[in-house]
């Protein structure tokens, strides 16, 4: 376990060394936040209580999504491209002969990165949003703790999905197409464009039970205190179930991929 803790720390540090990139990320997230905030204001002026959100709640959604954008890789990006590159170049051989588990290794390193981005790229945009707009943030309460737990589960789901995408490279070699499709799916189904609860009918129902909703929609609803008591437990359970399912799927795919490499050679 200490190994994976060390890997997480190194993932954190590794991203912490890119200060300019972090500053650029904060800037981008803040600008995005303003653009989306004014779009939402226009929309909610026309249709108050759209999706059951008041204006403040909608704006809270915007700024929270910007705060989580980097950490949960809501619009793509992340370690999977590096993993694909290692598979393509054959560097994966180095990872395979090590006495460490591939999935746990990347999970630890990705969580380290996510924690850094949560702090480095998340706090400032949310603070700017809270200063410039009226948000529906809770006071000092247990809601924040529930929110952070929900974010953590969301990060696990995000990793689980992206690990599957990364491993595709064992069969596809070039991951660019999958990555692009995956980024689009993530952007839409996480709710980064519009909260998932504004979508009506069967489409909305389906969108809300897909794993991506665990990355943003659920944590925001926890923060807005729309999920409390048994509802909160159900929300966290929903996220945990997806996290476990995806991590297990990743493990199965990893076993298949390793067997393919070991028997057939890369």
């Amino acid at each position, binding site marked *: 376990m200490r190994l994976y803790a060390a890997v997480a720390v190194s993932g954190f540090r*590794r991203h912490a060394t890119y200060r300019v990139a972090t500053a650029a990320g904060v800037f981008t997230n803040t600008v995005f936040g303003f653009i989306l905030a004014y779009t939402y204001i226009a929309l909610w002026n026309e249709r108050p209580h759209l999706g059951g959100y008041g204006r403040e709640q909608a704006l809270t959604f915007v700024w929270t999504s910007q705060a989580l954008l980097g950490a949960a890789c809501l619009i793509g990006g992340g370690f999977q491209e590096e993993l694909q590159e290692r598979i393509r170049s*054959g560097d994966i*051989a180095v990872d395979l*002969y090590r006495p460490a588990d591939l999935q746990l290794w990347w999970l630890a390193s990705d969580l380290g990165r996510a924690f850094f981005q949560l702090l480095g790229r998340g706090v400032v945009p949310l603070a700017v949003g809270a200063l410039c707009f009226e948000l529906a943030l809770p006071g000092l309460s247990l809601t924040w703790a529930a929110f952070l737990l929900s974010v953590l589960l969301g990060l696990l789901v995000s990793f689980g999905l992206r690990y599957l995408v990364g491993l595709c490279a064992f069969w596809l070699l070039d991951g660019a197409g999958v990555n692009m499709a995956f980024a689009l799916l993530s952007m839409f189904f996480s709710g980064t464009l519009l909260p998932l609860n504004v979508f009506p009918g069967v489409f909305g129902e389906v969108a809300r039970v897909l794993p991506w909703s665990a990355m943003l929609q659920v944590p925001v609803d926890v923060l807005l205190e729309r999920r409390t008591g048994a509802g909160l437990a159900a929300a966290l359970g929903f996220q945990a179930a997806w996290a476990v399912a995806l991590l297990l799927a990743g493990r199965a795919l990893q076993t298949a991929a390793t067997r393919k490499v*070991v028997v*057939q050679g890369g």
Partner: protein
Amino acid sequence: MDDLIVLEGVEKVFDVRRRAGFLRRERHRVRAVDGIGFRVPRGEMVGYIGPNGAGKSTTIKMLTGILTPSAGRLRVAGIDPSRDRSRLARRIGVVFGQRTTLWWDLPLRDSYGLVRRMYRVPDARYRANLERCVELLDLGELLDVPVRQLSLGQRMRGDIAAALLHDPEVLYLDEPTIGLDVASKAKVREFLRDVNAERGMTVLLTTHDLTDIEQLCKRVMVIDHGRLVYDGGLDGLHAKGESERTLVVDLEREFPPITGVPGARVVRVEGPRQWLAFAATHSAAPVVAAVAERYPLVDLSVREPDIEQVIARMYAEG
């Protein structure tokens, strides 16, 4: 008895699918390794050479356990690599000249910290090993530099240190001097010689640079088309490759080509200078004596055969 690496009739066959027209695919089999057997006793440093695509890397991959052999028996330190990959990993070190085992964005020191946790190296041991590597490989000033900023030679030294921190019994070196300048090569070789002598580490060295072999290995194995075509001492390689040494003699004046020297023949004449070729396995002394006895000798020199030519000839035959 104490053979750390044992291969018996090891084969590796790949199924390659090839497109053969619209939607139709042909399968065909490639024998990357075709029945190789050898043993490496503890503490020996062996050169493993062969042309590109001969099966060297496939062999190394089987020895680390990331490829399973299609047939045959393979043991490293008593362990079946493909069955017990992570147990074996703690006892071997691997250096790939063309890949790095370090982390690109981390300083060397942090990479070593991860290696230490991964192999659970005890503190005191880790410190002692690191200190030794830092001293011998001149890493002192590089420890806090991120790997991406290191030059190739520096990175290579960093990689070699990383492979040794957990005291492996067996070390695989896959082209450890590729792309390095002369000074870096010399430093790496000197270090490897020390490590081998001091710790009795068993080393399997793959390379295209035959100077590596000449300076480091008493024994050399040549692989071609997946088969071992030679296994023995460097001198034996000359016999096998039918290589020749050359005696260059300067006579007092011009003579017709020298005759009557048993086992030698003139290959070139230039004024008073003549070149005589004789089998590399023979001593130069009788040849020199025979010439000196019948011709007015002014000066002489003996040229050793070029090992690269010897091996090139061997590859061509195989």
